[in-house]
C-alpha cells in the first residue's frame, strides 16, 4: 500500500520534488512522440500529481479496484498526460509506451477513459468530475468506508454551473472525505481565462467548504495543504492551487498559447536539456 500520512520533513519534500521532475520527463517523452499535447497543463500540475501518487493517496498499484482505495478523479480529461506520467512510475503502464501518447490505436490517449485501470473517471466533458466525486464520497459514508475522494478540477471548470451544483451538495451532505483540488493555471481553450472567476477561494467558502489557497508548484505548500485537508470535521475541503502552465521549462512558461502546445522537432532536445538544467 502506497501512502504515508506522516508529515514529511524537508528531505521527503525534496524526494517528492524529484518525483515531480521525473513526471515532467515522462511528459516530455509523451509530447515528443506525438509532436504536441497538453504539455503546459501537465507540467503545471506535476507537483500535485507527484504529491498525490507518492504521498497522499492510499492505494495498491496491484489492485486499483480495491473498494477501500482512495480515489483521485481527474475531471480534466486532457490532463491525461500527467496521469500517464505518474502511471509509468507506479507500474500501472509500461514506461516504454509513453511515446505512443495520443497515437491511433494506442493505450494512452490524450484524454482519460475509465476503462483503463487506475483511471477513476472518464474526463473530457468539463464540469462532471466534482458531482461524480460527491456520489463516491456519499456512497463511502453510507458504507462506513474511510477511503477518501480527491477531485482535480480546473479554473475553466469553475465556470460550469454543474461544478457549483456539486459544491452545494458536497457541503450539504457534510462530505469531509471529499477534497477538491482546483488547478488555477489562468488559461482555458480560448486563451487567458475568458470569464472572470475570481475570487475563487471565497466562492468555495460561500458554498460551505473549507478552503486554502497555495502556490500549486511549491511542494512543501502542497503537502501542507493535503495534511490540512485530512480534518474530519463534516466539511469538504477545497485546495486552490495557483499553478504556472509549462512550469519548469522557461521556454514553455513564456509561451502565449499554452492550452495546446505544438513543438517543432528541432526544439525537443533543447527542452529536454532545459528541464535537466533547471533541476540540476
Amino acid at each position, binding site marked *: 500500500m502506497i501512502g504515508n500520512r506522516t508529515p514529511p520533513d524537508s528531505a521527503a519534500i525534496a524526494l517528492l520534488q524529484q518525483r515531480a521532475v521525473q513526471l515532467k520527463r515522462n511528459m516530455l517523452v509523451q509530447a515528443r512522440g506525438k509532436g504536441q499535447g497538453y504539455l503546459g497543463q501537465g507540467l503545471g500540475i506535476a507537483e500535485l500529481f507527484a504529491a498525490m501518487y507518492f504521498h497522499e493517496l492510499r492505494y495498491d498499484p496491484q489492485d486499483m479496484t480495491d473498494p477501500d482505495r482512495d480515489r483521485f478523479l481527474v475531471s480534466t480529461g486532457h490532463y491525461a498526460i500527467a496521469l500517464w506520467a505518474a502511471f509509468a512510475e507506479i507500474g500501472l503502464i509500461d514506461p516504454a509506451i509513453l511515446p505512443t501518447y495520443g497515437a491511433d490505436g494506442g493505450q494512452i490517449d490524450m484524454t482519460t477513459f475509465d476503462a483503463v485501470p487506475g483511471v477513476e473517471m472518464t474526463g473530457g466533458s468539463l464540469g462532471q468530475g466534482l*458531482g461524480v466525486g460527491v*456520489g463516491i464520497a456519499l456512497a463511502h459514508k453510507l458504507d462506513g468506508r474511510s477511503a477518501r475522494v480527491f477531485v482535480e478540477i480546473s479554473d475553466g471548470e469553475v465556470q460550469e454551473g454543474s461544478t457549483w451544483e456539486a459544491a452545494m451538495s458536497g457541503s450539504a451532505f457534510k462530505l469531509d472525505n471529499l477534497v477538491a483540488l482546483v488547478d488555477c493555471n489562468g488559461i482555458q481553450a480560448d486563451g487567458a481565462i475568458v470569464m472572470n472567476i475570481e475570487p475563487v477561494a471565497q466562492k468555495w467558502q460561500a458554498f460551505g467548504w473549507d478552503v486554502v489557497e497555495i502556490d500549486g508548484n511549491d511542494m512543501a505548500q502542497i503537502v501542507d495543504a493535503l495534511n490540512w485537508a485530512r480534518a474530519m470535521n463534516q466539511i469538504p475541503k477545497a485546495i486552490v492551487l495557483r499553478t504556472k502552465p509549462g512550469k519548469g521549462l522557461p521556454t514553455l512558461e513564456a509561451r502565449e498559447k499554452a492550452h495546446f502546445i505544438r513543438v517543432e522537432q528541432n526544439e525537443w532536445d533543447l527542452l529536454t536539456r532545459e528541464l535537466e538544467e533547471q533541476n540540476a
Partner: protein
Amino acid sequence: MLNSTSNAHADSGKRSIQAPFGAALVKLATHHDDVVGLTADLGKYTDIMPFAAAFPDRYFNVGMAEQNLIAVAAGMAKAGKTPFVTTYGVFATRRAYDFIAVACAHSNLNVKIFGALPGLTTSYGASHQAIEDSALMRAIPGLTVIDPCDASEIMDVVNAAYDTPGTVYVRLQRGNVPIALPADYSFKTGKAQIVKAGSDIGIISTGISTAHALEAAARLEASGKSAAILHVPTLKPFDHAAVVEFAKSFDQLATVENHVKEGGLATQVAECLFEAGIVRKLQRIGLPDAFVEYGSPAYLMDKYGISAAKIFEALR
C-alpha cells in the same frame, strides 16, 4: 402517494395502482442493500416517497440540480450502489443529457433513471411534457430505454431495470396508474409481445398508447374490424425480429405512441421494416413536430390524435 396527480386520462372505474413505482422500489430495496434513491426536488411528484419513508438513510435529494443528480448517481454507481433516480423526463433528458451520456452510459454504470410525465400525461405545458425523450435517449450508445404501459408493467420494469446491467431510462407514469394489459402479460426486457390477436390490421404501440390502442381495438372489433396489437415497451434495444415478424402478417399497419413521431417508435419501426425489405404503408399515430400547449391530458391526447377515440377514428 401524497397528493400525486392522478392520470386524468384514466377512465374512472378501472383497476389501478397508486404509485406503482414507489411500491415496487421499496420491495426491491428490501432485498438489495445496494439500491439507493435519488431525486432533484421532485420526490413528492415522482412516486419515490414510499422508498424515502422506508429507507431514509438511502434516500438523497440534491435539490433543483439535474446535472448533479446524474453525476452523483454515477459516482454512487462507481462505488457499488445501484441508484434509482427520479425527476421529470424533460429535466433528465434536456438538462442532464451530457451527464447521462458521458458520466453514466460511457462507463456502463448501473444508474436507473425514471423520468416522469412522458408525452402528454401532464397538463403543465411544453416545459414539462417529455415528447422527444425516447428519441434523445435511444441515440445514446448502450442505453436501455423503456416505455411501460401500465401499473403492473411499471412494477415489473423496476425489477428489470435492476437486473439489466448498465444505464436504463424509463418513462414513468406517476400517481394512480391504471392496469390495462392482459393479466397473463409480463414484461421481458428487450421483448415486444403481442397483447391482442387480430387479423385485419396490425398496430405497433408503446407506453400508455398501448392501453389506448387496446381500447380502440375493442371498438374496432365492435365495428367489424379485427386489430392485433404488438406492444413494444423496450425501445432500445429494439426487438427487430418481433416487429418484422408481426408486420409480415398485415397489409394495414399503424404505430401509436405518446411521443413525437420523428425519432420515436414510428421511426424505429420504419427503419426496421426497410432494413428487412418489407414495404408497407405505415400509418403513424403520434405527436406532431410541435410544442404542445397547456391542457388536461385527456383533452390534449384527444386534440393531438392519440386518445382511444382518435385512434379508433384513424384506423376504422
